């Protein structure tokens, strides 16, 4: 089953400001499992790319908050997840774009593997 996971950064990933609970190792493991991964953040797109590259993670996309629907149009998957820490800027955008949504603390257990 093809899975796509979009990660918010600030408040979600450990490298965010504020730091979130999801480690870059978790993201790397997710990507290495064949899952399509990328970021969807209010950070500049160039800054998102720089984070992935700094950590040696082969990301598939880096987009702004309102561009999740573009991601869905570009990548074929059976299920789309977005993980973020904000009701308005993560959950609402995710649901509106047809993504399923996890809070960061829910994502720690990698529920997509179950």
């Amino acid at each position, binding site marked *: 089953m093809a899975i796509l996971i979009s990660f918010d950064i600030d408040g979600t990933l450990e490298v965010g400001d504020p730091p979130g609970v999801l480690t870059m190792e978790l993201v790397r493991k997710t990507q290495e499992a064949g899952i399509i991964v990328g970021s969807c953040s209010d950070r*500049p*797109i160039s800054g998102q790319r720089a984070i992935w590259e700094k950590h040696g993670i082969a990301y598939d996309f880096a987009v*702004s908050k309102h561009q999740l629907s573009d991601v869905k149009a570009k990548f074929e998957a059976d299920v789309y997840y977005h993980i973020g820490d904000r009701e308005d800027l993560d959950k609402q955008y995710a649901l509106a774009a047809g993504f399923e949504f996890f809070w960061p603390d829910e994502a720690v257990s990698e529920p997509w593997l179950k």
Partner: protein
Amino acid sequence: MATENAPASMYRTTEGLGVWEHKGKVAAVGVGHSPTTRRWDGTAENTMGANSIFALRQAIADAGVDPSQIDGLVLDPVTTTGAHWPEGDPIPMDVVNAYNQTDDPLDGIAKLSAEWILKNMPELSNVKFTMYGPGCMSHAIVVAAQAVGEGRTHTCLVLKSWHNLEGRYNQAGISASESVPGSFAMAPGRTLWGAPGSYGTALQFAEYCRKYGKSHDMMAPFMSNSRRNGLLFPEGYWAQHRPEHLTEEDYLNARWIAKPANLFDNDIPIMVSGAYLFTTAERAKDMKQKPVYIINHASSRGTQRSILPTLDEVEAETASTGRKIYEGAGITAADLSFENMYDGFALFHQFHLEGLRYRGMQNGDALDFYQKDISIEGPDPVLPSGGNIGSGRSRFWMHTDCIQQIQGRAGARTITGVKPEIGVSGGPMPMGGNFTVWSATPD
């Protein structure tokens, strides 16, 4: 000593006043900044008050002045970025008690009085003049300049501090209320239930684009240039915490906040304090840094006919401001080496620029101007400080940059395409603000 707001008589608000009577007789010498942070961490050592003391001591040391020589202090007592202390939240008394208190426990945390500063800086033993210039550093500067010019103080500290608390911007205080009075909620940024703070500027910008056939995309070079300049400002937030550029792709892909104002057209609220030491031209000669002479200050107090200013009103007011700036300084637009007008929100910088007739531009010209070389290396530098876009919301990077450029202390940000001899800075809003003309020479 009760500290009052500056009287209206200290501001130069109208055209026709002639050359400022204290032109070249007041100088900025010392500069000080606290470190920047995104929000307060709750510790006593990182309060807004602590930042204020740090910045003031930096400015004093920078000027090479014995604190006992200082006899004046001008500041803005309002320090909120939009974050308010939540009603009913306990006040951390361990933090309050770490400092000498006034009768308001939030003094030094979420507001700032001159009394609090003097109680916590015992070295300022000879301060006899205190005054508030409420609003922002632009306000405090013109009050301090006028005060030195009038002889109310001869060596005066000027301070602006900002606090930022946990939680989201402008969603506490009155924004958390069940109701607000009258038309309060209709004005930009007033409450959670009103429109975003930038919506008024966005409407003016939309009309500007329609009237002159321009587009929001044309802002991209200005935004990238401003962030670049900000990353060359070691005192700024982005340089200190997230040294990342803002490319045209980044800017054009940002989500709308109040279309056509996007995320990056809105500045980022931060904690920071900035301070300057002003003195008389005579005293400045003996201080540690090169004097930067203030050759005029001018204020804008535009009135609008409705809830939001129209483009026509904005253009008329900024043009008037430009005339006041030049008239009081006894200069013309051709004499300006550079400009550092306010940019928070980014979409009104061009109103200030066009009002100044900077490099001969007229209304509707600025976005085309942005497509040319506006870098610090070129002959037509625009916002060399990088402003709030480049370094976070302080509303004082522009003033610091003017002083440092003219003193030859702007480091990697130094303007090289033109000799920095006369600069202008100020704001905030096109319809209301305070502006200062800085010069390498008193005349």
